[in-house]
């Protein structure tokens, strides 16, 4: 709350003290004086009204007396009837108050009148109100005032009843004005007479009378008509008036003496004015005197105020003057004492200020202040010069925002405004610019400066150049970042264990390594040196830890740990003990590196190596099998061919035929064996057709039945709507046969059941990978997801153990005494060649299930209805022409020549490609067909074919080989052979083929 000014307080108090009593007394006096004056005035007016009323009364009494006089005369007969008119006329003349006097008889007929009017005598006045009232009451009657028609003047009738007659006097009331005219009250006051109806009958302004103005509505009239004689205040014609009312007894007229209030109470108003003026003068005088005294009292105080101002300006000289008031004198002396003290303190303060100024100016820390507009008002020289490169004078008066970039200025200005708005001490970092434009990173500490009223004047504070520190911090952060990155890349974390306090710290990477949640796990040493669930590692780890505890040795070990997420990982832990000056172990620090990935990679590498080795082994076996099969076929060609020829030569009853048939049979079995080896090696003959597995198996039913033991039952479960799959018929048949054979052999002589099931299934990635896992690693293939047609062969045989299953598909592996070990190898080769997969499940004593899956084909192609190999051949077909037989095996040459000749051809032979070319050239076009072996020394069949085509492009060339047709035919990108025949072949095969070749048109050959 603001302190009040003594001057004002004293002034008001003095004035109040002076004025209030004067006012109070004055008001009371005025009031009482006003009241008594008012009473006097009203009383005076009332007296006047009463006087006028008396005059009116007397005025009215006169005509009454005159009428009474007439009555008396009539009664006494003093005036005769004849003289009466004359008498009346004299009266009217003598007394102007009368307008007319009439005498009416008892019927109201006018008998006498004055002044005389010939029209009036004899007139019936019985309807006149005055007649009827007077007749009724028998008393004199004053009528209401009226305007007399004859005179157009105010009048009334005064009726005086006689015994039978009636005297009526018409009074002229204009005389009333004489009564009131002599009344003069002030300038505007007057008297008026108002009849009992409230109509003005006498008034200084005759208009009111002539216009019969009625004032019955006025308050005083209403009150007076109730019989009250007194003074009233009322308003008439817009003027506030005071009226005193007195009654005229005969007529109850009101005599009112009225005056405008303003005029009536003018003396009162004058007294009041004088009183107010007097009071005001008294107050002013009192005020004046009060002011004079106040001045005297305040003068020394004001002087003290001036002196204090001078002292504030630094002038400490003061001598108290002579002061008349003791209290103020004491104040002045105390003031002097205070000034002396202030002077001394000021001196000390200056000295102190100089000292601190020097300190501030020499400080390296910037000490600064800015005003409310952000302009520098102070900067310590040394720091300003050093930090900014400016002289302080160059900066003072300029906004601090001039010393930074516009973007920084915007930010800093916001902070400045916050501080100015009242925010507490603010520390912030900013970037200023030196004089040469280089940036300076600075740390500012600022507070607001306020004046006494709390208004913000500006800010002040300190600041320091933190550029170097910032750079060092940045470098440290960068270093930490790189270390963190390196740790992340290397999956390496470091840890630090304070033995004394037990506190553990570790880098962020440790959380990652052990899959700890940083929000839930606090660093503990057990988390690093966690002992494994596998006891075999305990001793090793403990040894490492113990070494670290006991010496300065650096220890490391690998461990497998359980991670927080339940997985396991491999880690390398290193640790080192740090000892204090007393030799006590203070700290153990170390690293932990996640080597799980490395371990996995090593495992995979080893596995892969094993796979490669196995595959190489199989490939070499395959190559071996393929080579053996090829050579074998050639040999079999010799055996089967000659056997076939021999059968043709021997008479039907020759006992040797049986032997030769046996030779054929054995040779064919051998050929089958060679085929299996070829199939295993992947070189089996491939003719792709769309196969309906259900139909296929059904067709083989008889064959399968005869292939198994009689004690074994064969069951079929065929799925409906089985999709087709693409496959080589022969090879698929071989697969089924081999599986059934194996199943039968597994059951052996016991009773058992072999179940063949077909179906289609969608194999997803997980299923395929799972199958791959159950197979030996070398048999894995990346099979595409999709629909697979499967054949499942389940037996109730003896089953196999795991070790047997692992080697099941190895070539030449067999558990049977007489087994050759190629069946399942061939199956595997065929299945792989068909991009299929094979799954085995077996349990000892329970049986085995083989499941072969082939990828389903989108649509059937080349349905397996066509089995060209089994088609019958016309045995009677004979060829003609010359055939050149080219083969490096003499056996095959010999057998083949005989076969061809038996068919009807003339045969030339050659042992290799070169010889064949020579012969062909020398034949001069006589050779109709060339039967060409593929694998020959000096010139291969492939090369020879090309050369032959050069000689004669349309020459019929039939290739023969122990390998499959596809392997052979795909070698020829240009014009290939006209046909192919697989070794070993017999005469009928050869006949069929030659017929086929020679049936083709020439242009089809090539």
């Amino acid at each position, binding site marked *: 709350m603001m302190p009040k000014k003594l001057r004002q307080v004293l*002034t008001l108090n003095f004035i109040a003290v002076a004025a209030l009593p004067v006012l109070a007394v004055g008001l009371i006096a005025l009031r009482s004086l006003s009241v008594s004056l008012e009473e006097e005035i009203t009383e005076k007016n009332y007296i006047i009204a009463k006087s006028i009323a008396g005059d009116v009364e007397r005025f009215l009494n006169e005509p009454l007396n005159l009428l009474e006089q007439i009555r008396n005369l009539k009664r006494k007969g003093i005036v005769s009837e004849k003289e009466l008119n004359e008498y009346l006329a004299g009266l009217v003349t003598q007394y102007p108050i009368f307008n007319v006097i009439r005498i009416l008889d008892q019927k109201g007929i006018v008998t006498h009148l004055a002044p005389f009017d*010939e029209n009036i005598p004899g007139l019936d006045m019985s*309807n006149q109100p005055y007649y009827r009232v007077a007749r009724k009451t028998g008393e004199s009657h004053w009528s209401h005032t009226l*305007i007399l028609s004859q005179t157009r003047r105010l009048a009334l009738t005064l009726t005086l009843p006689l015994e039978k007659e009636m005297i009526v006097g018409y009074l002229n009331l204009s005389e009333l004005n004489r009564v009131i005219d002599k009344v003069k009250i002030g300038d505007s006051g007057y008297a008026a007479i108002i009849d009992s109806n409230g*109509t003005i009958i006498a008034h200084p302004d005759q208009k009111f009378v002539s216009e019969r103005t009625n004032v019955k509505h006025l308050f005083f009239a209403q009150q007076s008509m109730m019989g009250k004689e007194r003074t009233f205040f009322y308003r008439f014609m817009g003027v506030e008036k005071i009226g005193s009312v007195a009654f005229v007894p005969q007529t109850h007229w009101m005599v009112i003496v009225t005056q405008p209030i303003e005029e009536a109470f003018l003396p009162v108003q004058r007294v009041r004015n004088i009183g107010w003026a007097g009071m005001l003068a008294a107050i*002013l005088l009192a005020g004046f005197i009060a002011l004079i005294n106040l001045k005297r009292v305040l003068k020394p105080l004001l002087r003290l105020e001036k002196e204090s101002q001078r002292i504030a300006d630094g002038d400490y000289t003061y001598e108290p003057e002579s002061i008349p008031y003791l209290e103020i004198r004491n104040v002045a002396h105390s003031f002097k004492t205070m000034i002396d003290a202030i002077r001394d303190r000021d001196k000390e303060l200056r000295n102190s200020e100089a000292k601190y100024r020097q300190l501030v100016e020499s400080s390296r820390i910037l000490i600064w202040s800015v005003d409310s507009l952000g302009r520098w008002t102070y900067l310590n020289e040394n720091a300003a010069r050093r930090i900014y490169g400016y002289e302080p004078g160059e900066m003072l008066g300029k906004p601090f925002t001039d010393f930074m970039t516009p973007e920084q200025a915007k930010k800093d200005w916001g902070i400045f405004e916050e501080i100015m708005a009242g925010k507490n001490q603010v520390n912030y970092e900013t970037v200023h610019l030196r004089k040469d434009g280089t940036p300076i990173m600075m740390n500012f500490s600022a507070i607001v400066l306020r004046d006494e009223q709390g208004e913000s004047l500006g800010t002040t504070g300190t600041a320091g150049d933190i550029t170097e520190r910032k750079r060092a911090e940045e470098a440290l952060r960068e270093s930490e970042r790189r270390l963190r990155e390196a740790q992340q890349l290397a999956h390496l974390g470091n840890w630090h264990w304070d033995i004394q306090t037990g506190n553990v710290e570790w880098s962020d990477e440790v959380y990652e390594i052990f899959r700890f949640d940083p929000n839930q796990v606090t660093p503990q040493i057990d988390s690093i040196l966690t002992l494994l669930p596998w006891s075999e590692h305990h001793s090793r780890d403990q040894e490492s830890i113990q070494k670290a505890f006991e010496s300065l040795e650096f220890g490391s070990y690998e461990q497998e740990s359980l991670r927080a997420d339940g997985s396991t990982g491999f880690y390398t832990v290193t640790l080192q003990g740090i000892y204090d000056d007393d030799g006590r172990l203070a700290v153990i620090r170390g690293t932990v590196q996640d080597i799980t990935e490395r371990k996995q990679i090593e495992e995979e590498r080893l596995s892969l190596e094993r796979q490669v080795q196995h595959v190489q082994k199989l490939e070499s076996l395959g190559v071996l099998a393929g080579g053996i099969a090829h050579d074998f076929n050639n040999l079999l060609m010799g055996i089967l061919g000659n056997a076939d020829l021999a059968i043709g030569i021997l008479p039907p009853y020759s006992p040797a035929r049986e032997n030769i048939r046996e030779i054929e049979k054995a040779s064919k079995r051998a050929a089958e064996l060679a085929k299996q080896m070829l199939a295993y090696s992947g070189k089996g003959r491939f003719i792709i057709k769309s196969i309906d597995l259900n139909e296929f198996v059904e067709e083989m039913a008889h064959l399968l039945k005869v292939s198994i033991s009689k004690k074994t039952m064969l069951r079929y479960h065929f799925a409906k709507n089985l999709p087709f799959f693409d496959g080589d018929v022969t090879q698929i048949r071989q697969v089924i046969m081999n599986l059934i054979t194996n199943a039968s052999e597994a059951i052996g002589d016991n009773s058992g059941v072999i179940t063949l099931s077909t179906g289609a299934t969608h194999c997803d990635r997980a299923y395929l990978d799972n199958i791959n896992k159950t197979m030996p690693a070398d048999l894995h293939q990346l099979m595409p997801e999709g629909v697979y047609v499967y054949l499942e062969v389940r037996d109730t045989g003896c089953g196999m153990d795991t070790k047997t299953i692992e080697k099941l598909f190895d070539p030449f592996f067999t558990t049977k005494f007489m087994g050759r070990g190629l069946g399942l190898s061939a199956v595997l080769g065929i299945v792989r060649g068909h991009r299929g997969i094979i799954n085995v499940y077996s349990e000892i004593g329970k049986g085995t299930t083989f499941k072969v899956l082939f990828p389903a084909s989108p649509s059937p192609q080349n349905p397996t209805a066509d089995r060209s190999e089994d088609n019958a051949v016309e045995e009677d077909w004979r060829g003609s022409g010359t055939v050149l037989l080219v083969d490096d095996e003499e056996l095959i040459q010999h057998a083949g020549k005989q076969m061809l000749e038996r068919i009807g051809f003339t045969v030339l032979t050659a042992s290799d490609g070169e010889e064949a070319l020579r012969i062909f050239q020398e034949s001069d076009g006589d050779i109709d067909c060339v039967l060409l072996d593929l694998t020959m020394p000096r010139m291969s069949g492939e090369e020879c074919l090309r050369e032959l085509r050069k000689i004669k492009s349309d020459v019929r060339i039939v290739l023969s080989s122990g390998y499959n047709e596809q392997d052979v035919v795909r070698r020829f990108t240009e014009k290939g052979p006209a046909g192919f025949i697989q070794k070993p072949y017999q005469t009928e095969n050869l006949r069929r083929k030659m017929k086929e070749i020679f049936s083709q048109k020439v242009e089809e050959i090539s």
Partner: protein
Amino acid sequence: MKAIQRKIIVVVIGFAVILVVLFFVIPKSMHPKEPIKIGLANTLTGTASTAGIHIRNGAILAVEQANAAGGIHGRMVELLVRDDKGDPAEALRVDQELIDEGVVAILGHYLSTLSMATVPLMNEKNVLMIGLGSITSELTGLDDNFLRVEIPIDREAPMMADLAYNRLGLRDMVIVYDAANQKLADSWCSNFSKEFRKLGGRVSGAVALDSREKFSAPNLARQIIKSKAQGVFLVTNGIHGALICQHLRREGSGVKIVASGWTFPDTDFLANGGLAVEGVVSVSGFEEVPGNRREREFRDAYERRFGESCTEPAQNGYEGVQILLTALAITNDPQKLKSVILDHKIFPGVGGIIVFDPYGDPVRAAYFVEIRDRRITTIGKTEPSNH
């Protein structure tokens, strides 16, 4: 110190200003809304002043009642009364004076001659005048700024003729008129004669008197008797009409007398007529005995206010003000008062509903009256219609 002195002076001056404001400015500012001024120009002195004063009193009563009820939309009504003294020139002067004072309309005049003289001024100034006694037929059916509350002669005359011809059975009549009001007399004479003749009667003659001069009532009576008319139609003031009746009876004449609306309503006629006026008939817009509450309330209020019985002129004055105030309640535009009244058309007069025709002439109930046993008695009534 100077500062203190200045402050004291400021305080004193401030105090004085406050006083002035309290006692002078505020009261003035609190002055109520500007009053509505309406003018009343009537004959308050001289001939016909009695009726004029009654008209004024009736108007005053209506204004006082309106102000007691809060005025017109909060504005008080101020009645400015002027005396036309029965003189056309004075009438024109006071009308102009009232117009200059800003009255919204003028009620007046009582005498037809004055209305005839002042209506052109009203038309020129476009100020509405409501006639409270002028019954001349020369102002009937005119589209002007003149409306009136009393039935004009040309509409009353048929009723008078009907009264004389059918009720009294008169077939031959003589008209007695006061030449002092020639216009009125001519209007009555011509209209009554026309209507009486329409019915089949005959107006055998007209006898004139001049109230401004001395005349012999007996001679007049003899003159009337000599005409041998069955009936007399009086077109005079009350006192002269009473005089004629008295002398006719004194001369022994039993001639039937029909009094005009000039003669009959004058209180002097009955008061000075004695028994001679018994049986005199007339047509009046004033029902002696109040027929309804509204009439009773009006007459009671009039008697309380003015201490005398209510008369037809007082009723006219009252009704005239009420009609004007009704219009002012609808519009404060003086230019529109006439159209408002004519649009409003029907007003509840004290003496029965008043219907204004498009020209501002009233159609209202009229009463057949007769003096019986020294009293005015209603013997019949006509309802408003366009006569």
